[in-house]
């Protein structure tokens, strides 16, 4: 009997795999919020402010894209924020302390991210640690290692002016390149998730890991690969955040994982796995930064910004649960 429900559930899921309902809800909420702030808050409706919102979304958008992969598998990654710090420090060490060319620094950041992701994946797939615990451990390990290898000193990219010069310049319609990097990363993630075998296994793992294993898929290996892909996005986020500060700051990173998870969840990615979309996640990330910046421009006190952001996360998850219940 359980098998039948499972089958039924996964069939419904495959129909709704694009998760269009929640995505539309999130998009509707985003447009509503933008319209509301634009109408009510003086000075909000300006090109520069919209560009500020895009810029503020870049870091979280990249992190949330990465974490979407692992959440779809039914896992979680709490190490994305501090992993990002670690990758930015690795890039600083390669491109500044060792004085190697900038492209090598960028590659090093991506490689460091993939390493963090692979370790997460191996801990989960091989050592059978629950994802929550494995990545919680790696949250501390990556933060600590970022500080060990930097000797707790920020690394400035002054001698690599091309770095911030490229990522923060605005050659296309006045939007800084980090925003295009985020959107490009999301596009690659969309292709990976929807057009490749990696994507198919990502959804399959989250829908029914045992069935996937029984159908002959090397589940452990694919888990490690999926966490490594998540890691590549962590590395990309490390590049993006370092370019905004023109430096790698070893003390930063805690709390970014929660924004990333919140963006994915608001965008309709289910924490119980099997469902999710990159488009939804990016919408979720925009929603969070629109909310933050809108409330800032409106001059709402900080404590209320926290309350409102929290309520939006709760509301999004609640809507998701309601939708799930009505479907069952």
């Amino acid at each position, binding site marked *: 009997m359980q098998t039948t429900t499972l089958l039924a559930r996964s069939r419904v899921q495959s129909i709704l795999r694009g998760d269009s309902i929640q995505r539309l809800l999130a998009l509707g909420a985003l447009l509503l919020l933008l319209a509301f702030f634009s109408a009510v808050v003086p*000075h909000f409706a300006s090109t520069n402010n919209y560009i500020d919102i895009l810029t503020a979304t870049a870091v979280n958008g990249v992190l949330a894209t990465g974490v979407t992969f692992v959440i779809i598998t039914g896992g979680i990654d709490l190490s994305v924020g501090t992993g990002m710090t670690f990758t930015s420090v690795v890039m600083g060490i390669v491109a500044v302390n060792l004085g190697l060319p900038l492209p090598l620094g960028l590659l090093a950041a991506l490689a460091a991210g993939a390493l963090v992701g692979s370790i997460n994946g191996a801990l989960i797939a091989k050592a059978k640690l629950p994802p929550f615990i494995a990545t919680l451990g790696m949250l501390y390990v990556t933060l600590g290692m970022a500080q060990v290898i930097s000797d707790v000193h920020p690394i400035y990219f002054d001698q690599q002016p091309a770095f911030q010069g490229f990522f923060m310049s605005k050659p296309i319609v006045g939007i800084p390149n980090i925003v295009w990097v985020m959107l490009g990363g999301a596009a690659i993630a969309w292709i990976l998730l929807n057009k490749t075998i990696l994507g198919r296994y990502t959804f399959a793992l989250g829908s029914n890991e045992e069935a996937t294993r029984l159908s002959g898929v090397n589940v452990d290996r694919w888990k490690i690969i999926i966490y490594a892909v998540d890691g590549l996005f962590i590395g990309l986020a490390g590049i993006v955040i370092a370019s905004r500060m023109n430096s790698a700051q070893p003390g930063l990173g805690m709390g970014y994982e929660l924004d990333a998870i919140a963006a994915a969840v608001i965008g309709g990615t289910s924490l119980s796995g099997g469902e999710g979309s990159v488009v939804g996640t990016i919408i979720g990330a925009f929603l969070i930064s629109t909310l933050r910046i809108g409330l800032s421009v409106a001059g709402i006190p900080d404590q209320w910004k926290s309350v409102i952001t929290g309520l939006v996360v709760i509301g999004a998850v609640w809507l998701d649960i309601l939708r799930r219940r009505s479907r069952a």
Partner: protein
Amino acid sequence: MKLTRITSLAAGTMTLALVVSACSGSATTAPAASAAAASAQASSAGGAASAYVPPTDAGAAKGKTIAIISKGEQHQFWQAVKKGALDEAAKLGVTATYQGPATESEVDKQLTMLQTALSNNPAAVCFAALDSKAAGALLAQAQASKIPVVGFDSGVDSTIPVTTVATDNTAAAAVAADHMASLIGNAGTVGVIVHDQTSQTGITRRDGFLAQMAAKYPNIKVLPPQYGAGDAVKSADIAKAMMTANPDLKGFFGANEGSIKGVLNALKETGNEGKIVAIGYDSGQQQIDAITSGVEAGAITQNPIGIGSKCVDAAVDAINGKALPQKIDTGFSWFDKTNINNPEIQAVLYK
């Protein structure tokens, strides 16, 4: 399957719990009253501060252990405090241990550190409380065990510490306000970005700045302070939002290193470098460069190395039973393009 579902449910719940605690984590202190008390203490003890003469040798304290519990370890400021403390301890021939929590909202972790330190029965404790009230029981325990407590940085809001080694942040922020006023011609709109609204340094710097503006410069409008957790990217986004909301903004005061870095990033990203007056706090490479190039008008520097060394000095004196002034002021300086290369400024800056 069932297990996975339970795990993911647990993960979800805990994530939400984390979101909630992250949002409420900074709301652990409630001290409008204690801020006032601290500033009152600062002004009343102002005269006594200069009287303090640090010991030249450890005397009976030689070889004994002083446990230093700070508010952090990762920030460059705390690294400088640590260096000052450990160097002074080595010079006097005492042993000093130094530790602090990862972020300045981890009150509970800091209490655990204090508890562990007390269990090792040190000769003295130097303590920069994240939350003085929360530490009350442990401080009473220290007093009962006759372990002298030296407060430093934001200090300890209690009668137990034998002295407090700190910067007079209220007076320092008022100096920042004076410079801001003269740089914008005593009129216009000014934004304030602070690291948090619960720590003593956040409260005293913010209120010191606001009070001076209110008292002396009626034509300057200070916007409601905004808080960026000392994160240079989050503070930049906030600064840009404030510029959006107030196109006539003439100046920014960033109340700690992370806050002013955020302001500098925002000015750079919006192409407003040199157009809006930026005034900061503490030092760090980015701020030093910005002041040298004229993008930042100037900053208040504390003397972090001095805070570290003086708190070891005070602890040694306390172990030896010497009387200490109620407050030991470690001083602050205004620095800008004109005096940044003076040796007395260079000595207190950190990179």
